[in-house]
């Protein structure tokens, strides 16, 4: 079979042991002819070392202000198949659990109405179907909706929330990440589908501080599982581990607060000084478990570099009793979120993420705005400069 475009440079990327995206694009092109032109254009990029997409252009589905990203080829005459090459974002199943029946149907949709290419998953966690025209968007939307799936976020809105596998398949999970993720997505569908924020806002949920979904590095509001009471120790299993490797050197000596020691054969932990970093539990999973009083910490403000530099999430609420709040439909957290969004709406400027706003107005102003008290867990250490702005109410 004759190829439509010669792709000698891309062909180099079909060699080697790691799975080849070029072969994937070729396989997609076998089912959806237009994707031949994607190969052609990418080959051209490989030749001239620049991309050949126009900046943006609108694409969308009636009734939604988000969920599609428009993409147009710079050379529509040369590559008519990708003149329009939009992608649709679809809210994933929490924890990315699926079955073969759904995935096969989705594959069929992508081949029938789009370029036969999908992302599992986009960086935010959406399923993405790539390569459709505006005219086809409605068909794809309908077909996806009939499978019981809905569009995700894009632009200045609540982005699609995501979570780790949590209690479905991980013994470290301190709360039900999938349940709260689904609940809050459901609660804020309007904020997700109709952009009305200053900029994007992300929630991510990790069941413990290993933070498998990197929530503290890339979500405005990160929920990271933790516990309050004592780590549960199975001394017999500790002894078994001691026979296998140097527990003192690789576990105790690496505890960041040095709060573990051996009393004879038995392991002891000063739990008041434990910062719940997960190291010891990761290393001795059969011997150690988080306590029974479980919940999560909430960190705020993480974001990528643009515009004013990258930020890591900072501690806002050291212990949120999410398991208790779950019984009340998460009322407490919803009221905190609504305070935050009001403050952001009132004081934030366009394209300012909430972390940047806090940086600009100061943490104290933000805390007052949302009704939280300053506490020492929020800082690395108290201030070391003397330029204190005392206020009138301080008599």
């Amino acid at each position, binding site marked *: 079979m004759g190829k439509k475009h010669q792709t000698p440079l*891309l062909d180099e990327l079909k060699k080697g042991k*790691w*799975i*080849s*995206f*070029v072969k*994937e694009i070729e396989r*997609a092109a076998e089912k959806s002819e237009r994707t031949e032109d*994607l190969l052609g254009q*990418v080959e051209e990029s490989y030749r001239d*070392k*620049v*991309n050949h997409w126009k*900046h*943006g252009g609108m694409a969308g589905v009636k009734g*939604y202000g988000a969920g599609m990203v428009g993409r147009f080829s710079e050379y529509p005459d040369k590559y008519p198949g990708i003149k329009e090459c939009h992608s649709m974002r679809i809210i994933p*199943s*929490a*924890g990315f*659990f699926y079955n*073969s029946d759904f995935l096969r149907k*989705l*594959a069929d949709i992508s081949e029938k109405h789009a370029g036969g*290419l999908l*992302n*599992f998953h986009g960086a935010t966690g959406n399923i993405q179907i790539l390569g459709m025209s505006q005219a086809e968007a409605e068909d794809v939307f*309908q077909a996806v909706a*009939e*499978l*019981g799936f*809905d569009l995700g976020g894009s632009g200045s809105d609540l982005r699609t929330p995501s979570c*780790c*596998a949590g209690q*479905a*398949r*991980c*013994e470290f999970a301190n709360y*039900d990440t999938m349940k709260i*993720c*689904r609940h809050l997505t*459901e609660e804020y*569908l309007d904020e997700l*589908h109709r952009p009305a924020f200053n900029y994007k806002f992300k929630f991510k949920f990790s069941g413990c501080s*290993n933070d*498998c979904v*990197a929530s503290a*590095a*890339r979500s405005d509001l990160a929920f990271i599982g933790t516990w309050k009471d004592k780590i549960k120790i199975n001394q017999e299993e500790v002894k078994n581990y001691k026979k296998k490797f140097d527990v003192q050197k690789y576990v105790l000596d690496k505890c960041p607060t040095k709060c573990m020691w051996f009393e004879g054969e038995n392991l002891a932990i000063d739990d008041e000084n434990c910062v719940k*970093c997960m*190291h010891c539990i990761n290393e001795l999973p*059969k011997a150690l478990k988080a306590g029974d009083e479980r919940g999560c910490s909430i960190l705020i403000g993480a974001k*990528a*570099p*643009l*515009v*004013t*530099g*990258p930020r*890591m999430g900072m501690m806002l609420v050291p212990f949120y009793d999410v398991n208790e709040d779950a019984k009340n439909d998460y009322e407490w957290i919803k009221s905190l979120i609504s305070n935050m969004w009001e403050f952001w709406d009132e004081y934030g400027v366009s*394209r300012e993420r909430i972390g940047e706003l806090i940086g600009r107005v100061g943490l104290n102003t933000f805390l007052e705005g949302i009704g939280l008290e300053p506490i020492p867990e929020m800082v690395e250490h108290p201030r070391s400069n003397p330029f204190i702005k005392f206020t009138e109410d301080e008599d």
Partner: protein
Amino acid sequence: MAEEVKKKRLTDIGPHDYNEYLSPVIKKNYGKWAYHEIIDPGTMVHVAESGDKLYTVRMGSPRLVSGSFVRDICDIADKYCGGHLRFTTRNNVEFLIEDEKNVEPLKKDLEKMGYNVGGIGNIVANIVHTQGWVHCHTSASDASGVVKSVMDELYEYFVEEKLPSKVRIAFACCLNMCGSVSSSDIAIVGTHRKPPRIDLERLRNLCEIPSTIAACPTNSIRPDTVDGKPAVKVNEETCVFCGSCYTVCPAMPIANAENDGLSIWVGGKVSNARTKPTFSKLAIPFIPNDPPRWPGVVNAVKTILNEYKKGAEPGERVGEWIDRIGWPRFFKITGFPFTKYHIDDFRLGETTMNYSSHARL
């Protein structure tokens, strides 16, 4: 449900109920897992308090996949897992197996089909990455091609445990950093080196001048008047080539074939285990784009990985290893030159200086 959707064109149906996709053993033991063990880099087992076991086989994916790929993994899931499977944050596929007898045959089938089994434990994890030339207009480099080239070279580290700890590599093709790569053991980031060009005609039609000015982190965009009409100008002395202006104003393209390329960053992490999460730091400010196989980037990553493997203690992540040996030694053993670009002159840059007499001499 489907019928109703068809008739009424319902919108806002919301997230799908994940419970529909949980296998019986997961439903039964939800929240009651006791511990897990890594059997080999492709396989782990989770054991529940009830004694039930769930085996997981992990397989690499390029994230950008065809419908045929999806059908392949569905066939495997039907044959061995009752149709159940999931994806990980790093775009791997995970097969969820109840019967231990199915583990090895499943892996054999995957290998026969040419798929990569691995990615658990002290390995080089699948590289999270962005869209690149395949699907984004802001990109300073391709994404998938660089990732493929690096993973081909590091393949042995995905399928075998040979490293002191896990190594997470991430890739973003511009400073938007869609993948939030900035906290990875090794991050590869697309980098522009020339200021945006201004297309005045299109600017007037397409861009809102105040928001374009506000987009700039260094206040390098100023209002201007050309031929009596509103315009903008860029102060090339202060522009840091970030491309933020192009994101809001399509008439300020910044891509430049001769001057775009990649930078390498090291020592970040997101987990809280032992040390706090931290950003990756600059190792190499610029490597030119050299498609189709990017040997410059591949060699740089390999150099870092080799030195890390030689020098780190068991359990140390890349950042912890560098903290212990110090940055001067890192530059010495990798042979990467330390340049003026490594000194931070952006906001808060002065907080990164060495305020002490400590030096490893």
